[in-house]
């Protein structure tokens, strides 16, 4: 029987569920021209959730509902950044959505439900909770991708996402059932102990492989990356921003819960698999990105390569490695929101600004936007003093520390290859003349400008002062 303590531990999630339902109701009774109220209310709802997460954070990890739900430091940091990214995403897309007749209440409520899924997933103490959180997140995401239902591209992306996502969920469930068969438990803490004492863990290892496939799919690591380019391109940019930020944090949380909390003692087995996924992701992501002409697709392949770097941190399988991977996930979420934020800011009615050539001469038209995008590109490329460099530095260090110098060198080589396509974007913005006859008007939404500027400048600020964030990341993984 759940007691009041269990409820308090889960308060942020329960609050968000209630708030989302209220927003849905409110939306049904509101006139379309009053939607601005819903917009600001949603932002407030998310900000309050951040407050609840931080203020109610217990000193020591606590478990609720018989160990189904864990509230610890890892969960806190992931939730804070996931909610923060959603708050940023909520501020920006009002005009973008309105221009495309997508300015509907569902955008906000679906995204809140998705972030509830993220929060459940990163707090999971049980395989069932992992699955519940994952499904809540992905089902909301499918709907979000299909938000622009009149667009063939959008619908195609949603169907692809749904089919492949369902397949991955099936794999994950299959793996979980095998793990259950081998250890007779679904609780991650019990599983951790049981896995250590299983004689020949063939069944367990098979289960683990299927679970890693599920994780690989969620991360978008090659060879489970097929959905990423289509979904990134097909989804409305306002949704792509989301897909590229909070779910990446969730995927890290899922990998951490399943691999470390659950199968930590089998790390010698999964380290090798993750290393293979990392090399494949680095190679496919960086090489295929070179030939892209569509900016959203380019960023999609760049995501794949970034997940490769994140895996370099996970491969370490120690507190230092998890801290670096978490740091990487946060840095990627910030870079992703900023990159797609610029794309969205430059889009207008009937014009998506999604080809690289659409950015031609941006420095002449809007020097500030060009500057922000340049910060993002150099950060993605890993050039100091921007945030992305330090994230790369930390994962390379984690890989070398794990004795995988070769993996770090592979990472370094692909960083050079990746550099090229990020530089190409800077080149187009700064060195090319604007195409005659096209105009490039910024959306004059001051709130969006502010948030976007803060987001991109944070890459510079955090690059100069990344110590506190790293300290926080390290503190949640006791050695």
């Amino acid at each position, binding site marked *: 029987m759940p007691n009041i303590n269990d409820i308090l531990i889960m308060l942020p999630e329960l609050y968000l569920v209630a708030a989302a339902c209220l927003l849905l109701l409110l939306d049904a009774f509101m006139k379309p021209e009053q939607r601005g109220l819903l917009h600001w209310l949603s932002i407030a709802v998310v900000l309050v959730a951040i407050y609840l997460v931080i203020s109610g954070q217990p000193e020591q990890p606590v478990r609720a509902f018989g160990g189904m739900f864990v509230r610890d430091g890892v969960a806190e940091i992931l939730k804070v950044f996931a909610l923060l990214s959603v708050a940023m995403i909520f501020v920006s897309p009002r005009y973008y959505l309105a221009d495309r007749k997508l300015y509907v209440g569902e955008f906000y409520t679906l995204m809140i439900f998705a972030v509830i899924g993220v929060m459940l997933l990163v707090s999971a103490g049980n395989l069932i909770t992992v699955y519940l959180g994952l499904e809540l997140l992905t089902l909301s995401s499918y709907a979000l991708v299909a938000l622009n239902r009149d667009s063939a591209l959008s619908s195609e992306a949603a169907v692809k996402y749904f089919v492949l996502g369902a397949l991955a969920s099936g794999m994950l469930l299959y793996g979980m059932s095998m793990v259950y068969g081998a250890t007779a438990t679904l609780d991650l803490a019990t599983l951790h102990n049981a896995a250590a004492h299983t004689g020949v863990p063939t069944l367990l290892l098979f289960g683990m492989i299927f679970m890693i496939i599920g994780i690989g799919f969620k991360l978008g690591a090659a060879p489970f990356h097929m959905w990423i380019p289509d979904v990134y391109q097909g989804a409305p940019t306002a949704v792509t921003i989301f897909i590229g930020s909070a779910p990446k944090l969730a995927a890290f949380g899922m990998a951490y819960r399943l691999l470390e909390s659950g199968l930590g003692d089998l790390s010698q087995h999964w380290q090798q698999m993750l290393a293979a996924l990392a090399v494949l992701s680095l190679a496919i992501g960086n090489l295929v990105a070179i030939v892209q002409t569509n900016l959203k697709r380019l960023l999609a392949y760049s995501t794949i390569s970034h997940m490769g770097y994140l895996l370099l941190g996970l491969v370490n399988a120690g507190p230092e490695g998890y801290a670096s991977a978490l740091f990487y996930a946060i840095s990627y979420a910030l870079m992703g929101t900023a990159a797609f934020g610029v794309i969205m800011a430059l889009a207008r009615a009937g014009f998506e600004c999604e080809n690289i050539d659409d950015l031609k001469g941006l*420095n002449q038209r809007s020097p500030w936007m060009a500057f922000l995008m340049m910060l993002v590109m150099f950060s993605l490329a890993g050039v100091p003093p921007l945030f992305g460099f330090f994230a790369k530095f930390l994962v390379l*260090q984690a890989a070398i520390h794990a004795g995988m110098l070769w993996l770090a060198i592979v990472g370094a080589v692909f960083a050079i290859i990746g550099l090229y396509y990020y530089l190409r974007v800077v080149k187009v913005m700064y060195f090319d003349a604007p195409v005659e006859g096209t105009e490039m008007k910024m959306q004059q939404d001051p709130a969006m400008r502010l948030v976007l500027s803060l987001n991109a400048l944070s890459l510079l600020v955090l690059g100069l002062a990344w110590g506190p964030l790293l300290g926080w990341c390290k503190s949640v993984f006791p050695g």
Partner: protein
Amino acid sequence: MFNHLLSLLIWLPIVGAIPVLLAGSGRPNTARWISLLVAVLTFVLSLFLLTQHNPADSSKQLGESYLWIASLGVHYGLAVDGISVALILLTTFVGILVIVGAWEVIQNKPHQYMAAMLVLEGLMIGVFCATDALLFYVFFEAMLIPMFILIGIWGGPRRVYATLKFFIYTFLGSIFMLVGLIYLYLKAGSFDLATLAALPLSMQEQTWLFFAFLAAFAVKVPMVPVHTWLPDAHVEAPTGGSVVLAAVMLKIGGYGFLRFSLPIVPDASEAYAWVVIGLSLIAVVYIGYVALVQEDMKKLVAYSSVAHMGFVTLGIFIAFMLVRGAGNADAAKLGMQGAMVQMISHGFVSGAMFSCIGVLYDRLHSRQIKDYGGVINVMPWFGFFYVLFAMANSGLPGTSGFVGEFQVILASFQANPWIALFAAFTLIIGAAYTLWMVKRVLWGEVTNPHVAEMKDINGREAFVLIAFAAAVVALGVWPQPLIHLMDSSVSALVQQLGNHKI
């Protein structure tokens, strides 16, 4: 103020770039004056280094150290010795001249140009001050961003190709250094350069690290065969970009050898000194011949830079043969000193040469030697400076170009006369390619009607050239202050060379 002199020197130009940018394209003159003010202030501040720094003391001075990343023990650590002071002064000196040099020349978004120059200046000063390897790396790499923009926006027709090549080449070299630095960090638990210098390393480790450092710094210097980005970058860069690139950025490669290869991996550096010496000689002789056949003035000076930088790497690594092979510390010091003087001198001379070419280019919009001829008839004052710098470039005694090269040749003679012989080739080849270019550009009849219309240098250009000329002559006639400034630091370095790590 003097407690934070180094931080001020780094951050003043970088922060100063913000008001320059804010002045915007609408008020180009305001932007120009602000950037000149910032550059002059930085130069004046850097002069205080001469009073605050004690050249008799070889240790690092004016130190500042703050914990930057507590959980990794990374410090924001700055300090300078005589070598750094000399290079910082070179940087701030050139910093003013490129701003003045670009005054009316850059009409397209001058505020962005000036801001990029100022940021670049601050970052380069940071490289010369950093005592923490990670901080060094951050400055070292961050430098690429403003340079990338400078070449890409204000460069010549093939600027995009040149700037991408420049960025990717340099990044390629340095990322392996990053892997090496992480390896060292995991071993030593610190990025502090002094700690790393004291860290015992096996020969195998040293060898890998040596080549990782070599990859980074050889590209930057640049040494043969990874020099190919330099001619492209120089040719396409705007005049100011070329000046900074040749005068300061190349020195960072030589400086890196001093701070990383020598103290951290001395035994591997000794074992592979022949590689560097061999490549340096190839640079001096072969690249000299390559320079001879160039038809583009900027390309010619770019190749001559590669050849002259060969003396820097030769002087640094010949010291190993002398200290460890022959036990001749005095000669080693001479060689090392020669390398340092050559770095500073080449900074002035190459900066001046590129400024001269810029003056010509602004008038005729061509860098081809064949388009000129008889320039002396219409631009006598310009001709005076051009000849002076050409003489310095070919190493005429009495100019700065002579001092360093002569010292390096003297030192290498004591190691191996054959090395000295090949190095001394530069006296012939250098004179040949430089003076032949002068002959074709300045002397003879005016054949091109556009040349006849060219006006002599104006006051602004004269200021830049006079400043460079004063430095070149002063250093050539009386190098003693510079040598004194770096003397104890060079002695300490030479002494360090003798320390075996295995």
